[in-house]
């Protein structure tokens, strides 16, 4: 049974539909990458899974339990936690206070404050600084630590690399296996196709709100994926499964 399953999801904003029949599955401890151009619906999908948006149609299940109707705050408590695009820390709180905010499964997993400081030593060093005064990389580390503090079953990472130096992004991606090893399933949105393929076991490509390609990251045809990414009409056939 998959940890997270999204089936036939339609979602959008007021009268604008952003997702059309999106289906996706995450096994326990699996990393799935979500790629696609700007406006393809990646953030909308993550926001819908996290509960910030009500889907118009379709279902989201966590460990087999339907969570489609759960409000956003319940979603986080049940184990689906989003690291939002642009980090969105609580600016007036210190780094440590940010990490202490999440309610819910605080004692239900390995991510205690100490464990998080061990994972992100740079956060430990800046724990009493206000979030607004931290560097971009430090803020991103706090944002991930804040999400992990809720001991999620599923971690949703929205463009962790946005606006960060490549070396810092590399460091974040090197931590993913460690998070994964603790049994956390990760759905990550990434603009950089090569990084997405390298970090994940499976990759899904969104185009204009539809999943146009999914496959094993190791065997996925990179050129076909790039073509799907930009919506080129004649994608060359490859080992990937077109849906």
């Amino acid at each position, binding site marked *: 049974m998959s940890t997270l399953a999204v089936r036939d999801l339609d979602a959008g904003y007021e009268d604008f539909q952003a997702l059309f029949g999106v289906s996706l599955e995450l096994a326990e401890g699996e990393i799935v990458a979500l790629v696609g151009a700007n406006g393809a619906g990646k953030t909308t999908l993550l926001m819908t899974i996290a509960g*910030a948006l009500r889907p118009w149609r379709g279902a989201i299940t966590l460990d087999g339990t339907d969570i489609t109707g759960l409000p956003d705050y319940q979603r*986080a*408590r049940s184990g689906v936690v989003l690291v939002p695009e642009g980090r*969105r820390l609580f600016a007036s709180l210190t780094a440590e206070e*940010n990490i202490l905010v999440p309610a819910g499964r605080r004692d239900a997993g390995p991510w205690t404050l100490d464990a998080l400081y061990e994972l992100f030593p740079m956060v430990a060093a800046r724990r009493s600084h206000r979030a607004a005064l931290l560097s971009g990389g430090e803020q991103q580390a706090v944002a991930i630590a804040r999400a992990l503090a809720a001991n999620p079953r599923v971690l949703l990472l929205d463009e962790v690399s946005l606006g960060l130096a490549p070396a810092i992004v590399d460091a974040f991606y090197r931590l993913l296996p460690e998070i994964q090893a603790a049994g956390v399933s990760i759905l990550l949105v990434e603009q950089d196709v090569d990084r997405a393929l390298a970090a994940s076991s499976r990759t899904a490509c969104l185009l204009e709100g539809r999943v146009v390609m999914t496959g094993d990251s190791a065997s996925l045809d990179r050129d076909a994926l790039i073509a799907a990414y930009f919506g080129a009409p004649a994608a060359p056939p490859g080992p990937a499964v077109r849906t």
Partner: protein
Amino acid sequence: MTWVNDILQGIFLGGAYALTAVGLSLMFGVMRMVNLAHGDLAVCGTYLATTVMAAFGVPLWAAMLIMVPLAFVLGLVLQLSLFGRALRSGTTAPLLVTFGLSVMIENLLLQVYSANTRGVGAGDLDVAAAHIGALVLPWLAMLKLILALVVIGGLSVLLRFTAWGRRVRATSDDLAVARLQGIRVRPLFASVTGIAIAAAALAGTLNAVTTGVYPTLGALTLIFAFEAVVIGGLGSLWGTLLGGMLLGVTQVVVSQVSVPYALLASQLLFLVVLAVRPQGLFGTPQAAG
């Protein structure tokens, strides 16, 4: 020496203003909500206290022990039933809803208690004072100042050091993300409004010991509370204390020169702050926007 005494009396008056205003400041700071019924809710607390005193024949302090928790509950109920809904429907709705509530409360009080001014008996607390040389230390005014310090200091400690405070500040920073981190905003906001209304009712009742209470007193109460909040900086509790004190000192000092101009002077102070530093003394430009 009379000037020193005047300034002291101004600070005492400022303590009363600050205690009245702290709830308004808290609600704006946390929810970005201006509660136009703030003064009327304070007046409701006063009438409730006088009713309890009359019904059970208990002294004021005992009546307040019953009234202040009831005011807290009233705040909870209002937030859960009315204000929360209004907040979710945009920025104008809370103004309209609380204005409507204000009109309703004033007319309801007129119906039930008539337009006559009611005294709030507190023994000789309203005239008793200690003297140090030429300095006069009125007990009631000192009590209000001390309560203002206790309420603002206590709230600051709660906000700064408790999990509740952390959640309040996080929600104030970014409501949508706070919800995504598992924070239930509704009960959190209800607790904030409960505290705000309880503090207002406490202040209103103590103020009424000096002035008496009448159904439309709330409008005047709101104006001074609002000015203290704006002068101090929207959303800053200590700013509100300072704002109240500046209002109080201005009023008392000017009244030594000319009593009719005393009220005008404090309004002018408000206008000058709005013109020169619209975000208030302790506010950030962002918070005022």
